[in-house]
């Protein structure tokens, strides 16, 4: 990060207040995870509160509600309590999205509640996260649930982890408690394939604010950054630019107007790599080749565009291309197959059973498929192989084989998250049954399968 983020100071016309605005900021997508009562709502509430992302009327509501419940200080966790049914039950059951910003960065936070439905929620939050904040209660240390969460985050390929050792005030800011938890967690993360610089542990008190936004004087033995400071400065790997180019075609743009009688462009969001005018590309699954004649964006054409950008690609040759096809660099192409070996996170009430017919949504294509084999279920703690089950239940993770009615161009999830992921959909109900990851994305899983 540059030290000085470019900013602009203005005077608010109504209040006369001086406001500092970033000229532009980058975006960090993060997820939070933790067990019930570890203090996650309080921590998220405090991040929102201390970054001034909570406005007066919302804060008033929290003050009122806290007073109604007989509390003397406002309960910041109420800022993030969601739907009425959940408020009544006093638990959060679904991923909620929060937004906050500092002059350095804009944050999209997927708040994933940690109770029985944890896999469903964590997988959802982790699928788009560039970083995850895991919470533990300093009095309890690393629990089974913590290990499970970390394993799921590793499986989904979340590049960076933060362990917030919360309620440090309740262990009298004791360094040795923190060190023990920190070491145990770092070791577990290492076993899951994380390098040490990808994992940061921070002692915090969500309730009192220690090391959340400001470094605390009560943890003089801790020399690392406060949580927000870390979130603001941690390098964000942008979408993979150095990966081979991939783009699922979402829509074919053919205006057929007087101004554009022959325009034929393939619209999509680049999922990996870079595409440039003149590049040789392959259209999959058919395999036809052509060259890029133009890369259009909504603001005009560009010489090249990179992962994450929504563009329209024009080709030199007139090919038969439609929604669902994938454009890829001719140098390294995805493999085209109708037999998929994959890891699946099962998200539905009704169990997965071999022989089930499903729909597979991969990129912009939906095809019929048959679940031909369920070869393993994984232990949720270490994600090691446990058995060859008859079925996979809600929130379980296992290994499957699928036969698709039409061939799909895929990459391993470990190499490319977009062309390596898919949804399993119930053909009659339309519900999303599971999250699929091509191949065996996690090292320990691969060795378990080999056993």
């Amino acid at each position, binding site marked *: 990060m540059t030290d000085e983020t470019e900013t602009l100071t203005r005077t*608010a016309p109504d209040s006369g207040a001086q406001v500092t605005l970033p000229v532009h900021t980058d975006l960090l997508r993060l997820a939070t995870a933790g067990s019930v009562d570890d203090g996650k709502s309080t921590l998220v509430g405090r991040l929102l509160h201390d970054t001034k992302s909570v406005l007066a009327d919302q804060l008033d509501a929290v003050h009122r509600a806290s007073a109604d419940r007989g509390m003397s200080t406002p309960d910041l966790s109420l800022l993030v309590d969601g739907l009425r049914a959940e408020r009544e039950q006093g638990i959060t059951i679904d991923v909620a999205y929060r937004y906050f910003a500092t002059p350095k960065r804009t944050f999209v936070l997927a708040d994933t509640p940690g109770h029985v439905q944890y896999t469903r929620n964590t997988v959802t939050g982790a699928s788009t996260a560039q970083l995850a904040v895991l919470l533990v209660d300093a009095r309890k240390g690393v629990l089974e649930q913590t290990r499970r969460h970390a394993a799921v985050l590793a499986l989904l390929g979340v590049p960076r982890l933060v362990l917030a050792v919360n309620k440090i005030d309740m262990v009298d800011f004791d360094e040795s408690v923190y060190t023990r938890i920190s070491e145990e967690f770092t070791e577990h993360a290492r076993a899951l394939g994380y390098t040490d610089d990808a994992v940061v542990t921070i002692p915090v008190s969500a309730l009192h604010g220690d090391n959340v936004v400001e470094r605390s004087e009560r943890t003089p033995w801790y020399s690392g950054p406060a949580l927000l400071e870390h979130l603001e400065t941690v390098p*964000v790997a942008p979408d993979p630019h150095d990966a081979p180019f991939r783009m699922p075609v979402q829509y074919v743009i053919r205006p057929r*107007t007087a101004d554009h009688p022959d325009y034929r462009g393939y619209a999509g969001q680049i999922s990996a790599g870079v595409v440039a005018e003149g590049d040789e590309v392959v259209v999959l699954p058919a395999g036809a080749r052509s060259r890029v004649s133009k890369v259009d964006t909504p603001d005009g054409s*560009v010489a090249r565009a990179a992962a994450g950008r929504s563009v329209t690609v024009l080709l030199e040759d007139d090919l038969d291309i439609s929604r669902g096809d994938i454009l890829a660099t001719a140098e390294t192409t995805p493999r085209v197959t109708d037999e998929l070996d994959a890891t699946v996170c099962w998200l539905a009430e009704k169990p997965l059973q071999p022989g089930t017919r499903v729909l597979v949504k*991969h990129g912009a294509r939906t095809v019929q498929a048959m679940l031909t084999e369920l070869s393993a279920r994984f232990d949720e703690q270490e994600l090691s192989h446990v058995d060859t089950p008859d079925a996979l239940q809600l929130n379980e993770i296992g290994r499957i084989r699928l036969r698709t009615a039409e061939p799909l161009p895929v990459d391993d999830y470990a190499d490319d998250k977009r062309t390596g992921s*898919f949804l399993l959909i119930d053909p009659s109900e339309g519900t999303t049954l599971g999250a699929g990851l091509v191949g065996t994305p996690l090292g320990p899983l691969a060795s378990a399968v080999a056993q």
Partner: protein
Amino acid sequence: MTIDTPTDRLAELSGEAALSEIPPQADNLDALESEAIHIFREVAGEFDRPVILFSGGKDSTVLVHLALKAFRPAPVPFPLLHVDTGHNFDEVLQFRDDLVARHNLRLVVARVQDYIDDGRLTERPDGTRNPLQTTPLLDAIGDNRFDAVFGGGRRDEERARAKERIFSLRNAFGQWDPRRQRPELWNLYNGKHRAGEHMRVFPLSNWTELDVWRYIQREKIELSHLYYAHRREVYSRDGMWLTAGPWGGPAEGEPVEEKIVRYRTIGDGSCTGAVESEAYTVDDVIAEVAASRLTERGATRADDRMSEAAMEDRKREGYF
């Protein structure tokens, strides 16, 4: 447009050596724009009869702008739907018609007044028509067989929205059931729905109010002038500045004053209040929003202030 960002900044971001000449998406607005365009194109590819719910407000104006960008140089492959409460500001209707004409769009209008005239709906004692929009909206969706309805809703607007999906499934009665919503993974959206059901789609889910205004500034999007400071005759009620119109005017003891005001949201004139403001330009508005102590809804919408769960109730009813 090429994004002019130094490559060493990208290197710092990615923690790698400088990658030459690759324009990164350093600005969060680029990422949000690409995400919204992706969503528009998914819907165009998966649904037969999408429509954009258009209120004349800033969020739906931004939606139209993004839809135009998503399909350029082809026209937007679906129409706009406006639920006209009959309590609209004239300026907003004029703005709507100009926008439709300028971009050659198709417009479908569902009128609350028609329902009141023939007795299908009755005027509420408080004169507010926002809650009456649900029936005409659902009828218009049914009559036109719309299967995907784009809305400008954002998750930062209200707590009950924080768990809303980008693709939000509605049953045949337009109702939203939190337990039937699907997990949304990666950027893979599941558009499957049964006959009679439809999908509400929210491309601006991940935008904040400030993002919307910064985008309006960057893209030079023209909005209804009501969003900017102007002189207006207003009267005070429930701590808001209301303006007289076809929906009624000041009661006894509510003196009319001339003020410099602007609107932060645009809706039913009977219950949408103006705020005192001298924000004449988009730059001024951005500074004001950044310094504001109130959410846009908290500031100006009487019906949202009725109860904490007001939004959630109306969402269940199919209004949002």
